[in-house]
């Protein structure tokens, strides 16, 4: 007997097919079988009443840190994939800055296997650009792709050698994968702990100027233009950076780019009092930058929302600001933050949100999903756009609690996460 699930009476929003309508969704054997406003009765199907809820192609986060291997006290692939499912994500891409880093097919295979074992959100590995993330010579890109890597990046240790970045952008084209870069010129920012500006001047903390990010964004765009390769720019946070990407896209450069929820809603003011939960890289910047990131998201310059989910143990963040590591968790707050502070504030509509959180990430990283077209994988997110809730980190499925959003009242919460036709999480 086949495995059937019907999501009945929800508001189906699927930008890939220009659908925003009340529909029933029939999932059969891990595939979307039918999308209909008058679905025939299937007595053998499990029925889920979705009236009053929003049904979308499964959300995809192309930028998460799962910390395994080597940082299991912060997160594991299993806990990260569970946190993703609880946040409404059906697919996540794992960054390779683990210990040891994911730099060969064995490492990639490990992430794939652990992801399958977890059986929650799909876990796609991203491999290193360079051996040991040292920025000196290319890692085994081809073999990693064969083993399941969907992109390469040295995230966290930006490739400072422009010549190597050029090689990566050329070589990656043989495998049709993007090169994802954390754009940061370390010679300008390595000592910094927060945005370089008024707050850093006041607090006496070393700053990372916008220019440290802008310079590498411009460099990467030029190298993508030179090579014809696909550059994916991670967590864009600066006004000028967004503008440079906008101009490059107009010239036809193959670039995709991320906006992170925290860069859409928080400024450097959140660091006041040396709050380590507001310490991340790139840092929170000024209102002018936030406005530009928001405008970039709205006009599609930044086509992808990605959390940069970066779990850290309580003890690690419980330190003086300069001694605390960068990063915040994001998987379990992203949808609520975006619905409340981006969609409800009128910056983008629901369909655009789904586009930025599902369709575009799938397209940028050539992932299955991002659509509810018949025959596509049965990865579906169901959420209640009106449900109010308060962020309580003690309820996170992630192993870590490092969020600046503790106590925030949000409107909009995931209800049901379906991967491969299976319910992997429900409220």
């Amino acid at each position, binding site marked *: 007997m086949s495995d059937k699930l019907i999501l009945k009476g929800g508001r189906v929003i699927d930008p890939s097919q220009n659908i925003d309508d009340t529909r029933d969704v029939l999932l059969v054997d891990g595939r979307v079988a039918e999308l209909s406003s008058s679905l025939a009765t299937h007595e053998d199907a499990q029925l889920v009443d979705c009236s009053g809820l929003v049904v979308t192609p499964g959300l995809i986060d192309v930028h998460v840190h799962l910390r395994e291997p080597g940082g299991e006290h912060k997160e594991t692939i299993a806990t990260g994939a569970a946190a993703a499912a609880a946040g409404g994500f059906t697919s996540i891409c794992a960054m390779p800055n683990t210990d040891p880093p994911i730099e060969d097919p064995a490492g990639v295979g490990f992430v794939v296997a652990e992801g399958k074992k977890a059986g929650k959100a799909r876990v796609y590995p991203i491999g290193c650009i360079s051996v040991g993330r040292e920025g000196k010579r290319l890692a085994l890109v081809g073999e990693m792709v064969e083993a399941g890597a969907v992109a390469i990046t040295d995230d966290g240790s930006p490739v400072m050698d422009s010549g190597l970045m050029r090689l990566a952008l050329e070589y990656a084209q043989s495998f049709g994968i993007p090169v994802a870069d954390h754009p940061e010129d370390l010679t300008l920012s390595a000592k910094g702990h927060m945005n370089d500006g008024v707050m850093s001047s006041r607090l006496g903390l070393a700053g990372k100027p916008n220019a440290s990010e802008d310079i590498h964004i411009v460099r990467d765009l030029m190298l993508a233009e030179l090579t014809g390769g696909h550059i994916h720019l991670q967590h864009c946070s600066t006004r000028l950076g967004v503008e440079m990407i906008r101009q490059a896209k107009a010239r036809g450069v193959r670039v995709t780019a991320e906006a992170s929820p925290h860069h859409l809603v928080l400024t450097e003011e959140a660091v006041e009092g040396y709050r380590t939960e507001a310490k991340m890289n790139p840092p929170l910047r000024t209102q002018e930058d936030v406005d530009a990131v928001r405008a970039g998201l709205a006009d599609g310059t930044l086509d992808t929302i990605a959390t940069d989910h970066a779990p850290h143990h309580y003890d690690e963040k419980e330190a*003086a600001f300069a*001694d605390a590591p960068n990063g915040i968790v994001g998987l379990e707050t992203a949808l609520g933050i975006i619905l409340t502070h981006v969609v409800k504030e009128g910056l983008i509509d629901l369909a655009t949100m789904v586009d930025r959180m599902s369709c575009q990430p799938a397209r940028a990283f050539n992932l299955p999903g991002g659509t509810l077209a018949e025959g596509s994988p049965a990865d579906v997110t169901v959420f209640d756009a009106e449900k109010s809730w308060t962020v309580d980190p003690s309820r996170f499925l992630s192993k870590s609690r490092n969020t600046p959003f503790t106590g925030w009242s949000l409107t909009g919460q995931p209800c049901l996460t379906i991967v491969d036709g299976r319910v992997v999480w429900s409220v």
Partner: protein
Amino acid sequence: MTNTVSPLGKDLIGLEKLTADQILQILDTAEPFKEISERRIKKVPVLRGKTIVNLFFEASTRTRVSFEFAEKRLSADTVNISTSGSSLVKGETLVDTARNLEAMRIDMVVMRHGASGAARFLAERIPSTVINAGDGWHEHPTQGLLDLLTIRDHMGHLEGLKVCIVGDILHSRVARSNIYGLRTLGAEVAVCGPRTLLPSMVEELGCQFFSRIEDAIQWADVLNVLRLQLERMQSGYVPSLREYNRIWGVSSKKLEAAPRDLLILHPGPMNRGVEIDSDVADGSHSVILNQVTNGVAVRMAVLYLLAGGQLEKAEAAKRGVES
């Protein structure tokens, strides 16, 4: 002493958040305490029975000794802990160190730490009073206070005075405490030094900026000359100490052009011949040693007020009359 609530709150982390009234209370309380250090028997029972830990994660002689004298002259029981030879180097976290001290029932911690925000971090996590003896590049409030007191002693007032801080502002906790304290009390503040050693948004802190020391000398009533750390040259912020001295060093020759007599402060330790020449440091307008003397009085005042003392009772307290 009665357990009244301190007019300064639980801790002294910085001058930025203090009101003019609070700062003046400290300065005014320091006045009667000055005399204690001039006595043959330099001791009053104001803090008798209080336990104070001087917790120094960075090397310091002047500040630590000054605090220790202040504590001892007020009859507190003190313990000094510095990074060498303690569990601080054994990987224990700052919080754990503090909680262990707390468990021994201490009343106050005086802390010097290399990380900006460390004092506030500690203060939010332990019930004892925390006094910031310098946190990273952030603040060094008792240095700021002793500078204010010294300027007031010699100029008679602070309001409307023009004070220029000269040198490495970027890495200086002394500069930030001076800027906040002076501005709150109505002084005009400027900074002068190479652009490489200024915070990126120094003007947002309410300071004028002079590139050249000659312009600062024309403008100012007071120069507070900061130490140029040798490592700043090694990290390339300035190309050479000789060049720094030529361009930003305070010399009597440069001071000759001043339209009025300038008061010269330096928080120490000095690099003679780098940021300040000896004839200036030892000259008639230098109040550098007065700063050191005032440091003890100001720290006594801070300790006294944080322990619940009151300005009005300071005179009686110093005579040894328990309130």
